[in-house]
């Protein structure tokens, strides 16, 4: 039986770089950072000074009381999913309920409805007020964002929610691709969202000593992946969604195909809860390449995990060199986290969206602020400015998570 090819027919984004795909791509192309000094009511006493906060007005996206029943993480999810579905034309083309039994949702998030939890804790522990909103549970639960997406568009096919920290939504895309390949669905909405910029969450991250201090001269440049001056990651928020669709299904309705997802590698380091392991990353990249059937040289851009931690960036570059050998010095690599921040559960999806950018017009997004590359991170960097070149045959996106989960995705041009 021939392999069912999985097309990308729609994309949607909410981020500090803009609340739609076009703005997101424009920002990446211009190397514009969405990182900034966080307002005092977000940081409180956490000591965290910078983050990539989305410019978000719920009332602009939701009518009347609708927004109040949705945690920010679900608001992001619904908005990005709406953009992706509209762009793909999928729901418009599939009105029948029976057809929607063949369309599913795979979602990823690290912390789910963090703001709802924060509000509840504030009430219980801060005010000794145990009278919590009745919707607290369904707003905070980890599967709320994906479920809200399924409910909104009546997507009645396979549903799964992944919570593997920073690889969550990359896993959602990989598993959604496999669901289509296996014939369990004709189309899947695959993506992820995160909205955990709350004082408590920031304090927890700060305690881990993994966040970058603010760049005093230029707060927007606080996240410096692969740079000698890097000091850690910068947290972000937002959502990204891909509409994945079996090729013949997409072609039958005349949909525009942006790319094909053809490789998915999934491994676990099984060595440490936070320290990355080169071998686990190498195996994930090799598995993704193996599934795609592509030679390493076919990869024309790697969107790195590149969180800008001291250890993480070095290990990833070593892993890339181990997999690609000499070609590692020819394949453009960048970490777009330098601009949109680390979306954690949403990172895999938003970085897949960034990785697909060269397919549109050959523009490869850069690692912003990379002025002094660390010799220990010697790969072919796209530093400071986007590069325009030929449209690559294929691209790779890496997502490596706390807990040791490694997910690598490969997409091919349409």
């Amino acid at each position, binding site marked *: 039986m021939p392999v069912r090819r999985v097309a990308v027919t729609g994309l949607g984004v909410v981020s500090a770089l803009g609340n739609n795909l076009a703005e997101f791509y424009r920002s990446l192309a211009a190397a514009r950072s969405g990182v900034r000094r966080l307002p005092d009511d977000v940081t409180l006493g956490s000591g965290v000074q910078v983050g990539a906060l989305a410019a978000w007005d719920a009332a602009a996206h939701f*009518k*009347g*009381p609708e927004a109040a029943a949705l945690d920010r993480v679900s608001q992001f999810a619904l908005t990005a999913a709406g953009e992706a579905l509209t762009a793909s034309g999928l729901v418009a083309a599939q009105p029948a309920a029976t057809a929607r039994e063949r369309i599913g949702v795979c979602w990823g998030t690290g912390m789910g409805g963090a703001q709802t939890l924060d509000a509840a804790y504030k009430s219980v522990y801060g005010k000794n007020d145990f009278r919590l909103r*009745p*919707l607290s549970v*369904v707003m905070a639960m980890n599967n709320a964002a994906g479920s809200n997406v399924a409910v909104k568009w009546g997507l009645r096919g396979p549903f799964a929610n992944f919570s593997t920290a920073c690889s969550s939504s990359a896993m959602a895309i990989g598993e959604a691709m496999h669901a289509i390949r296996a014939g369990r669905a004709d189309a899947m909405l695959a993506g992820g969202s995160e909205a955990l910029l709350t004082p408590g969450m920031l304090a927890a991250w700060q305690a881990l000593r993994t966040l970058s201090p603010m760049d005093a001269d230029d707060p927007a440049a606080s996240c410096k992946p692969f740079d000698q001056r890097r000091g850690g990651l910068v947290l972000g928020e937002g959502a990204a969604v891909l509409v994945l669709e079996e090729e013949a299904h997409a072609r039958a309705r005349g949909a525009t195909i942006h790319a094909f997802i053809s490789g998915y590698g999934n491994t676990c380091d099984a060595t440490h809860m936070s320290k990355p392991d080169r071998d686990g990353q190498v195996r994930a990249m090799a598995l993704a390449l193996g599934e795609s059937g592509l030679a390493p040289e076919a990869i024309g851009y790697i969107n790195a995990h590149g969180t800008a931690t001291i250890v993480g960036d070095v290990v990833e570059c070593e892993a890339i060199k181990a997999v690609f050998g000499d070609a590692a010095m020819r394949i453009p690599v960048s970490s777009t986290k330098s601009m949109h921040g680390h979306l954690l559960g949403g990172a895999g999806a938003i970085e897949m969206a960034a990785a697909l950018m060269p397919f549109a017009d050959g523009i490869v997004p850069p690692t912003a602020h990379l002025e002094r590359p660390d010799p220990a991170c010697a790969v072919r960097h796209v530093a400071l400015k986007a590069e325009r070149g030929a449209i690559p045959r294929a691209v790779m996106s890496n997502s490596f998570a706390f807990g040791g989960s490694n997910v690598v995705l490969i997409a091919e041009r349409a």
Partner: protein
Amino acid sequence: MDTLARIKDLAIKELALDPAKIDPNAPLAELGVDSLSFIEFMFKVEDEFGVKVSDEDLRKIKCLADLERHVAASLPAAGKA
């Protein structure tokens, strides 16, 4: 403003009900209010009127008129709205 009018206003705001179509005697389901939305709405009603509705009483409320009767009976008698 009387109790029913306040409940109606709250329902328009919190449940996005059409002011022209609110029938206080219509079953809530007919107004498009599901059980989850209703429980969240009751939370707001309790805040608005400073009352507490027990689970047992909640189950007896089938329409906004039932709700109004219940709230009115729960309100302190003198001088308070």
